[in-house]
C-alpha cells in the first residue's frame, strides 16, 4: 500500500469524491473563512463593505487559492478511488482463491487445461519473438542489408557475387556506409592433437565494420589484408578460442598452421557472435581479387547510410551491375542488360536470414492460438457448469445488496485469477519446452540461439491469459449476472436458467469442434504433403551410404599425378575393407550443395542468346561413384581409372540433359562444356536424374566429370557398406590416414541423416502441427464429454422419471447420442467451412496436395465426428442408468 495513506484511510471515503461536491466543499470552506473574518472586522468597528473588502484583501487571490485547492483535491480523489478499486480487486482475488481451495478438482482441471493452452502459446510466441520480432543483435541492425544477384533468364533466381562484383559495389555504391562480402568455407587447422577441420568465413576487411561488431580482443582486418597474398591472418570465434586455445588472451599475435600455411591470429570475436552462422570457428580475409570474374559464391552485406532504403540501394547496385555486364558481355551482346531481368536483390538482413521461417512460424502460432481458444472454451464450459451450481450463492449476494456489475466483476476476477494460475503453470511449461526444444536436434531454425523468454514474451502471456480469462469468464458470468432474484431464491426454479446455460454450452461445443477440425485438417494436409515428400524418388539409394569429408592438402590437390595416386590408393585400400561394398570419391555428395553451378553449352549447337543452355550442377567423381550412391547408369560406361589428366576429357550427363538434346544413348559421343571452362567433354555415359536440393523442387540437370581431370578439392569419400557400424568407419579412417596423414576426418555423415536435415523445418512443422492438432482433438473431445455429462446430470431427474414410467433405457442412450450428433454435425460443417477458408494460406507448406484434398477434407471430419460421438456415449450410458428414486429425492 501507498505509505502516504494512514491505515484508517478508508474513513475518508466519506469525503466527497465527485467533481461537483469537491467544488462545493472548497467554495463553502473558503466562504466560511471570509465570512468569519468579515464578521470579526465588523465587530472591531469597520463598516460592512469595508470589512468585506479588508477580509478579501487579507485573504489574497481567492480564485488562485480555490484553483490550487481544487487541483489537490481532485488528485487526492483520484488516488483514493484507485486505491479503493485495487483494494476491492485484491479482496475479490483473495475470495476467488478461497473459492478455488474449496473445489480443488475443478481448479486443477481448469488450471491444467489453461496451462496447456497458455504454455503452448507462450512457447510458440517465444520462438516467433526470438526469431522474427527481435531485431538482430547488431548496432542499428535495421540498416544492414544483404546483397545478392538474380538473373532469371539463365535459370539463376538467386546468384551470389563474384569478387569483381564485390569490389565494384564496395567502391561505387554510394548508398552504403560500408560494404563487405563473406562466403563459407572450411580449413584444416594443424595442431598437437592432429588435424582439425573447422568451418570458417572468408570475409572482406569491412565485414566487421558493416555488421557493427568487432573483435573483443585484438583488431579487425585492415584494408591492406584484403590483398591476395597478405591475407594470412585469422580472427577466432569465441568458441574456437576456448575449445582450442583455452581462452588464453596471449594467443593473439601467435602463428598457427592453416592448410599448411602460417597464419597469424590477430583477434578473437566476442561470445555469442554468430554471424552468419553460429558454427563459424574463425574468420579469414578472402584475399579479394577485383579482377576475378568467376565463382559467384559470395554474399554481400552493406550498411546503408541513414535515410537510404534497401530499394534505393537495389536500384543503385543494379545499375552498377548492368554497367559491368555490358562491359563483360555477361548477357549476350545483342541484348542490353537493362532489357533483361538481371538485377541485384537487396533485402534487410533480418528478412534475408529469417524470411523462409516466417510462414511456418506464423502458421504454428495461429495453430496454438486455436488450441488456446479451444482450451478457453473448455474452461468456459466447466465454469458454466459451476455457475449453475453457484446460482444460489450469487442470488444471495445480489439479495444482500451487491449490484449486478459487482457480481459480474467478482466472477470475472475469478476467471482472470484462474487464467493467471494457468499462466503461471503455462509459463513454467513453456520455459521447459523451449529449453528442451532449442537444445534438441529439431532446432534447425535460423537465430535459434537468440530465442529466450524475455519481457515481451511475459507481457504477451499476461495479455493473452487475462484476455482468455475475460473470454471464458464472460459467457457464464453474463448469464449469472442476469439472475433474477425473486425467481431464483425460490428453490427448484433451476431448469429455466439452465436452458440458457445449455445454449451457451452448445455454442461452445460447436465452436470447439469446428476449431479443432480446422487444426486437424491443416495438420492433415501438412502431414500428407510431408508423406508425399518423403516418398519422392531422390534418384539414388541413401541407405547404408556414409560420406566422409576429405579436404586434401594443397600439395596433393594441385598436382594431377599425386592426386591420381592418392585417389587410387585410398579407393583400393577402402574397398578392401570387409563390409565395404563400394567406395568412391566425389567433390559433392547428394544433398550437400558442395558442387558448382555453371552454365553449359552443347557441342555443335550455337550458343543461345542469353549465353548458355541453362545451369547445370557440376560434380567431379571417381570411378564407382554411381554404384556407391545408387544412381543407375542408363547408357554407356562409368568413369575408369584411365580417365585421367593425360587422356580424353570425358563427362557423364543425366538423362534429363540427354533427352533434351538427343534421345537416350544417342548422347554418347556428343560434347558438352561449362561456360566457366573452354574444354569440351565427350559424353561417355548417361545416368538417372538426382534431386540434390529441396525435394519439393524438380531435379536439376547434372554433369559429372572425371575427378583426376578436374582436380576438385575438398573431396568426400562415399562408402556403401553392408553394415554401417563404427568398426567399418574406424578401419576406413585408418586406411585414409595411411594414404595421407594430414587429412582431418571429423566430418562423417550418413546420407540418410543428410536427407533428414533437408526435411528438418518441414518435419518440425509437421511434428508441431500434428501434435497441436492432437491436443486440440483431445480438448474438444473432453469439451463435448463435459457438456454432455453436465446436461445428463442436469436432466437426471427427467431421465429418472422417464425410466420410472417405463421408458426404454436404449431410447435414452439414443436421445443423448442424438443431441451429441447434432452438435458434432454442426461443428463438422462449420469446421470444414473454416478449414476451406484458412488452408489457402498453407499452400506454400504443401507439396503435391491440394488445400481442398478430398481425403483430408472428408476423412478427418468423420474421424472427429466419431470421436465426438464416442465422448457422448459415456454420459449417454449414464442417462440410461439414471436412478428413478434418487431423481425423485433430489431437492
Amino acid at each position: 500500500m501507498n505509505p502516504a495513506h494512514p491505515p484508517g484511510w478508508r474513513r475518508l471515503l466519506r469525503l466527497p469524491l465527485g467533481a461537483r461536491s469537491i467544488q462545493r466543499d472548497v467554495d463553502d470552506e473558503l466562504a466560511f473563512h471570509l465570512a468569519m473574518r468579515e464578521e470579526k472586522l465588523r465587530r472591531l468597528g469597520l463598516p460592512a463593505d469595508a470589512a468585506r473588502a479588508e477580509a478579501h484583501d487579507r485573504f489574497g487571490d481567492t480564485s488562485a487559492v480555490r484553483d490550487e485547492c481544487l487541483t489537490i483535491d481532485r488528485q487526492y480523489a483520484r488516488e483514493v478511488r484507485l486505491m479503493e478499486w485495487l483494494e476491492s480487486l485484491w479482496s475479490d482475488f483473495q475470495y476467488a482463491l478461497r473459492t478455488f481451495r474449496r473445489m480443488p478438482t475443478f481448479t486443477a482441471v481448469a488450471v491444467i487445461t489453461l496451462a496447456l493452452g497458455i504454455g503452448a502459446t507462450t512457447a510458440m510466441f517465444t520462438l516467433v519473438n526470438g526469431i522474427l520480432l527481435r531485431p538482430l543483435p547488431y548496432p542499428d541492425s535495421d540498416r544492414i542489408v544483404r546483397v545478392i544477384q538474380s538473373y532469371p533468364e539463365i535459370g539463376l533466381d538467386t546468384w551470389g557475387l563474384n569478387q569483381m562484383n564485390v569490389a565494384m559495389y564496395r567502391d561505387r555504391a554510394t548508398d552504403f556506409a560500408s560494404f563487405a562480402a563473406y562466403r563459407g568455407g572450411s580449413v584444416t587447422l594443424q595442431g598437437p592433437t592432429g588435424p582439425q577441420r573447422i568451418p570458417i568465413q572468408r570475409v572482406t576487411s569491412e565485414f566487421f565494420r558493416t555488421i557493427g561488431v568487432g573483435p573483443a580482443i585484438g583488431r579487425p582486418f585492415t584494408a591492406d589484408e584484403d590483398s591476395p597474398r597478405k591475407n594470412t591472418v585469422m580472427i577466432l570465434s569465441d568458441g574456437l578460442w576456448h575449445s582450442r586455445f583455452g581462452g588464453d588472451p596471449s594467443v593473439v599475435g601467435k602463428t598457427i598452421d592453416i592448410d599448411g600455411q602460417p597464419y597469424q591470429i590477430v583477434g578473437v570475436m566476442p561470445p555469442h557472435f554468430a554471424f552468419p552462422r553460429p558454427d563459424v570457428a574463425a574468420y579469414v580475409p578472402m584475399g579479394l581479387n577485383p579482377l576475378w570474374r568467376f565463382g559467384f559464391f559470395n554474399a554481400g552485406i552493406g550498411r546503408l547510410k541513414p535515410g537510404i532504403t534497401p530499394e534505393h540501394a537495389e536500384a543503385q547496385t543494379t545499375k552498377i551491375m548492368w554497367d559491368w555486364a555490358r562491359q563483360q558481355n555477361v548477357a549476350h551482346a545483342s541484348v542490353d542488360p537493362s532489357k533483361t531481368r538481371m538485377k541485384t536483390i537487396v533485402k534487410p538482413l533480418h528478412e534475408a536470414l529469417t524470411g523462409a521461417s516466417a510462414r511456418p512460424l506464423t502458421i504454428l502460432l495461429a495453430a496454438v492460438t486455436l488450441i488456446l481458444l479451444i482450451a478457453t472454451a473448455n474452461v468456459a464450459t466447466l465454469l458454466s457448469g459451476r455457475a449453475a451450481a453457484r446460482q444460489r450463492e450469487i442470488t444471495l449476494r445480489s439479495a444482500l445488496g451487491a449490484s449486478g456489475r459487482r457480481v459480474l466483476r467478482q466472477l470475472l476476477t475469478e476467471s482472470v485469477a484462474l487464467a493467471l494460475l494457468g499462466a503461471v503453470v503455462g509459463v513454467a511449461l513453456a520455459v521447459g519446452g523451449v529449453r528442451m526444444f532449442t537444445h534438441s536436434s529439431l532446432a534447425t531454425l535460423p537465430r535459434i540461439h537468440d530465442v529466450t523468454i524475455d519481457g515481451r514474451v511475459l507481457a504477451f502471456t499476461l495479455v493473452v491469459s487475462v484476455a482468455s480469462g475475460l473470454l471464458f469468464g464472460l459467457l457464464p458470468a453474463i448469464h449469472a449476472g442476469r439472475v433474477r432474484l425473486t425467481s431464483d431464491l425460490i428453490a427448484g426454479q433451476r431448469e429455466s436458467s439452465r436452458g440458457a446455460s445449455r445454449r451457451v454450452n452448445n455454442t461452445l461445443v460447436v465452436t470447439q469442434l469446428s476449431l479443432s477440425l480446422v487444426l486437424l485438417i491443416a495438420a492433415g494436409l501438412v502431414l500428407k504433403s510431408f508423406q508425399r515428400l518423403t516418398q519422392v524418388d531422390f534418384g539414388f539409394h541413401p541407405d547404408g551410404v556414409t560420406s566422409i569429408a576429405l579436404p586434401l592438402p594443397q600439395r596433393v590437390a594441385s598436382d594431377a599425378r599425386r592426386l591420381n595416386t592418392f585417389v587410387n590408393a585410398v579407393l583400393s585400400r577402402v574397398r578392401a575393407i570387409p563390409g565395404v561394398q563400394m567406395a568412391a570419391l566425389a567433390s559433392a555428395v547428394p544433398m550437400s550443395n558442395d558442387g558448382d553451378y555453371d552454365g553449359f553449352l552443347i557441342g555443335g549447337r550455337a550458343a543461345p542468346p542469353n549465353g548458355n543452355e541453362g545451369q547445370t550442377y557440376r560434380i567431379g567423381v571417381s570411378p564407382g561413384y554411381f554404384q556407391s550412391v545408387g544412381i543407375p547408369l542408363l547408357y554407356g560406361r562409368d568413369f575408369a581409372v584411365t580417365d585421367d589428366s593425360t587422356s580424353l576429357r570425358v563427362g557423364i550427363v543425366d538423362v534429363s540433359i540427354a533427352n533434351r538434346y538427343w534421345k537416350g544413348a544417342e548422347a554418347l559421343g556428343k560434347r558438352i562444356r561449362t561456360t566457366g571452362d573452354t574444354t569440351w567433354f565427350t559424353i561417355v555415359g548417361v545416368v538417372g536424374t538426382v534431386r540434390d536440393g529441396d525435394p519439393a523442387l524438380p531435379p536439376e540437370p547434372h554433369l559429372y566429370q572425371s575427378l583426376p581431370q578436374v582436380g576438385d578439392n575438398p573431396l568426400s569419400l562415399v562408402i556403401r557398406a553392408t553394415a554401417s557400424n563404427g568398426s567399418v568407419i574406424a578401419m576406413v579412417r585408418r586406411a585414409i590416414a595411411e594414404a595421407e596423414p594430414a587429412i582431418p576426418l571429423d566430418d562423417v555423415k550418413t546420407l540418410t541423416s543428410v536427407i533428414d536435415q533437408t526435411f528438418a523445418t518441414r518435419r518440425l512443422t509437421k511434428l508441431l502441427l500434428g501434435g497441436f492438432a492432437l491436443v486440440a482433438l483431445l480438448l474438444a473431445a473432453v469439451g463435448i464429454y463435459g457438456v454432455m455429462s453436465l446436461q445428463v446430470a442436469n436432466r437426471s431427474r427427467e431421465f429418472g422419471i422417464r425410466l420410472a414410467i417405463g421408458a426404454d433405457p436404449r431410447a435414452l442412450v439414443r436421445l443423448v447420442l442424438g443431441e451429441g450428433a447434432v452438435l458434432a454435425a454442426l461443428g463438422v460443417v462449420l469446421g470444414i467451412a473454416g478449414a476451406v477458408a484458412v488452408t489457402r494460406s498453407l499452400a506454400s507448406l504443401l507439396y503435391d496436395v491440394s488445400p481442398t484434398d478430398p481425403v483430408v477434407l472428408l476423412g478427418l471430419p468423420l474421424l472427429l465426428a466419431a470421436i465426438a460421438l464416442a465422448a457422448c456415449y459415456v454420459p449417454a450410458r449414464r442417462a440410461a442408468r439414471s436412478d428413478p428414486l434418487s431423481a425423485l429425492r433430489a431437492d
Partner: protein
Amino acid sequence: MADTETDLLRSSLDLLVLKALSWGPMHGYGISEWVEEATESLLLLEEGTLYPALHRLERRGWITSEWGVSDNNRRAKFYRLTSAGRARFRAEAPLWHRHAQAIAVALKRTSMETA
C-alpha cells in the same frame, strides 16, 4: 525577495498547522487566527495560502477533515491530526529548532575567523 519568503513560509506553515492541530480539531479560520496570534503577527502571510497547505497535508495523510458546526453555529470544515501527522510533527519539530538555531547563530557571527 518574495519567492524566498514564500518557500520559507510554505515549509514553516506546514509545521505550524501541525502544531495548531496538536491542540485538537480546528477549522481553517481558527488555524489562521492561532497562527497569527502565536507568531505575534510576525509572519505576514496572506490568509489564503493556508488552504492549499491544509489540502496538501490532507492528501499526504497527515491530517483529516470532517464537516462540523462552528461555535457560532455555522457549517465549517474541521481538520484533525492523524496519528501519522502526529508522528510527523514529533519528528519535524526538533529538526526545525536545530535548523533555525544554526542559522541564527551563523547569521550573528561578526567575523570571518574560524575557531
